[in-house]
């Protein structure tokens, strides 16, 4: 690049899509990933994942609730956001956000309601006063806890979760498509982008659930279910391997073809993004956790529960960082070079208290966690033993 004098188009001086647009695919990825994980239990009957079946769904809802804030904070005119619903451009991937979001939210809320229905009725029957009214409202007037009704619930749940899997894939696949469909940008424009986004979303979702599960068990003084954690580690390992393989394959293909775009992408990855791409996305965020999870999966019989849990926790934290780094490298990396393909913009460092600053990004990440805590105070995120339900179930009298 330097031989061309580092020329930037005059309008290309600043990074336009900043931290909030990094957060947007990150948060929606957590939504999709956590949902797909929950489906492993609800649809594919991986019973060992039962302890996190509800947590994954609630985590998915928590992040979904706050995902739009990333976009709203970015928009120049957030007050006009309704235009995406009123005058949507059907040839624009971004225009689909409102519809996909609304549909997915409906599905997720319905599924969570069904999963917690028995608990709602039980809590309504046990509580009094305003609390009782509140739970009765949540019950939506249905107090049937008979085995037949549970069977119906389960059937509906299966259908909803079944729709939810392609829904989640679509939710995040289209986020990848937003970038993959920009033919003006060689770092974004690849048909692999939606698949890479989806796989890394699943990685981040599973990693987040492992962390929430570990912390939840720690604070409730309960034991982490070893088969569950082992299974989570196995799934996480598999999806991490797939995700990182795809990321590397894309770059290897670009490098091997060495077409015009490699003139800008080569220096971008090797120089401009050396720390966040090679250091964080590939080594610290990918290689290390893959080794740690490999130990958990392949050497399971030699591990104590504590070591397994610790390895999984650390690997999950690192993978969360990896996925964030991947989003950063895609979103910011794709804008560091000018469309002149002959120069790089000034480096982007987010402000702390800006509209698209670090403080608000942290808030958007933390608020869903607070939502999960709040939700747990209303309805149990971790499944109660079966006997409690059967003894407590009943209809609250008027």
């Amino acid at each position, binding site marked *: 690049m330097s031989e*061309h*004098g580092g*020329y930037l*188009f*005059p*309008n*290309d*001086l600043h990074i*336009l*899509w900043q931290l909030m647009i990094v957060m947007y695919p990150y948060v929606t990825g957590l939504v999709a990933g956590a949902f797909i994980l929950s489906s492993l239990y609800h649809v594919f009957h991986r019973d060992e994942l039962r302890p996190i079946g509800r947590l994954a769904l609630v985590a998915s809802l928590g992040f979904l609730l706050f995902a739009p804030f990333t*976009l709203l904070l*970015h*928009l*120049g*005119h*957030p007050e*006009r*956001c309704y*235009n*995406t*619903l*009123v*005058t*949507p*451009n*059907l*040839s*624009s991937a*971004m*225009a689909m*956000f409102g*519809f996909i979001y609304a549909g997915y939210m409906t599905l997720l809320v319905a599924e969570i*309601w*069904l999963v917690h*229905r028995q608990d709602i009725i039980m809590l309504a029957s046990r509580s009094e006063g305003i609390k009782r009214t509140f739970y*009765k409202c949540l019950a*939506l*007037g*249905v*107090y*049937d806890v*008979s085995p037949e*009704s549970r069977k*119906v*619930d389960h*059937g*509906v749940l299966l259908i909803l979760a079944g729709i939810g899997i392609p829904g989640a894939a679509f939710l995040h696949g289209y986020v990848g498509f*937003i970038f993959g*469909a*920009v*033919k*003006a*940008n060689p770092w974004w424009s690849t048909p692999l982008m939606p698949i890479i986004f989806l796989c890394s979303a699943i990685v981040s979702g599973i990693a987040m659930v492992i962390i929430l599960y570990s912390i939840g068990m720690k604070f409730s003084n309960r034991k982490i279910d070893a088969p569950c954690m082992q299974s989570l580690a196995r799934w996480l390992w598999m999806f991490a391997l797939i995700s990182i393989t795809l990321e590397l394959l894309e770059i290897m293909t670009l490098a091997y073809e060495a077409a015009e775009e490699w003139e800008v992408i080569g220096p971008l990855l090797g120089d401009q993004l050396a720390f966040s791409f090679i250091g964080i996305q590939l080594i610290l965020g990918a290689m290390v956790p893959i080794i740690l999870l490999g130990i958990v999966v392949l050497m399971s019989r030699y591990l104590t529960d504590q070591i397994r849990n610790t390895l999984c926790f650390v690997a999950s934290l690192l993978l969360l960082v990896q996925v964030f780094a991947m989003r950063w490298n895609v979103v910011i990396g794709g*804008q560091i070079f*000018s*469309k*002149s393909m*002959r120069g790089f913009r000034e480096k982007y460092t987010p402000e702390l208290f800006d509209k698209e600053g670090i403080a608000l990004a942290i808030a958007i990440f933390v608020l869903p966690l607070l939502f999960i805590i709040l939700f747990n105070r209303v309805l149990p995120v971790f499944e109660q033993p079966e006997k409690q339900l059967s003894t407590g179930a009943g*209809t609250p*009298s008027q």
Partner: protein
Amino acid sequence: MPTTPASDSDCGGCHACTPNDGTRRDFLKQGAKALGASVATIVLCDMTDLTKIAEASGATPRRPDLFTDGYDWTKHRYVYLVDIRKCIGCGSCVRACSQENNVPPAHFRTWVERYRVSRTGEAVIDSDNGGMDGFEPSMTGKDITKAFFFPKLCCHCTHTPCVQLCPVCASYRTVDGVVLVDETRCIGCGYCVQACPYGSRFIHPVTHTASKCTLCYHRITRGLTTACVQACPVEARMLGDMKQVGDKVAEIIATQRVQILQPELLTDPNCYYLGLTKEAR
């Protein structure tokens, strides 16, 4: 499914699943119908390309206030031609555009690049302040064998990615071939800025909406030419109209070896160049 009415024996005849249940179901049914109808209306309204409808019917433009009486946008198809061989890099066009369109500082609807290419094919390119102040002579330290000025602006592509990707239809292409932005509808997401391969769009720092070359639409629909074309002292920039018989630019495009920028992207630009060389992009 969860609202399947339970028998009285299931719930002890509670208030919730007795007479009100029917009302709730009715409400949900009505709600679902209303929602379905709304979505269907929106989808059907948007299914067809608005431009094509307008072309076919000669419909009124979105901003009729821009037009003087008697202007018929179906009778024009604007194109732009830049003759690189003629440009002297004076920057008059950039200044004229900036003044005419109140372009914010450090942003450009049009700009001029200076290319200096060495014998080995190495290109030294600059465009200080978009070429607005002209170009100071300077040494590159290289064996320069050819040099030229390269004016740029929005290519007003026929198959433009900026219109394709705009989530709210704020970016649109008029029947007479000009790509415009409806600033009252733009949400300022910046997707069009990312999508433009030519770097000709920017987010206006004051209005926070997408901004770009309008081909001086307020002028050309009144029979004037664009500010940049009018300001050019050497006729390096020309505005043409493909629907006007005997139009000079249309004739050049039809008969001479004109080129477009980044043809591999198939955006079908309507800004043509004479004298483009392999280093220029």
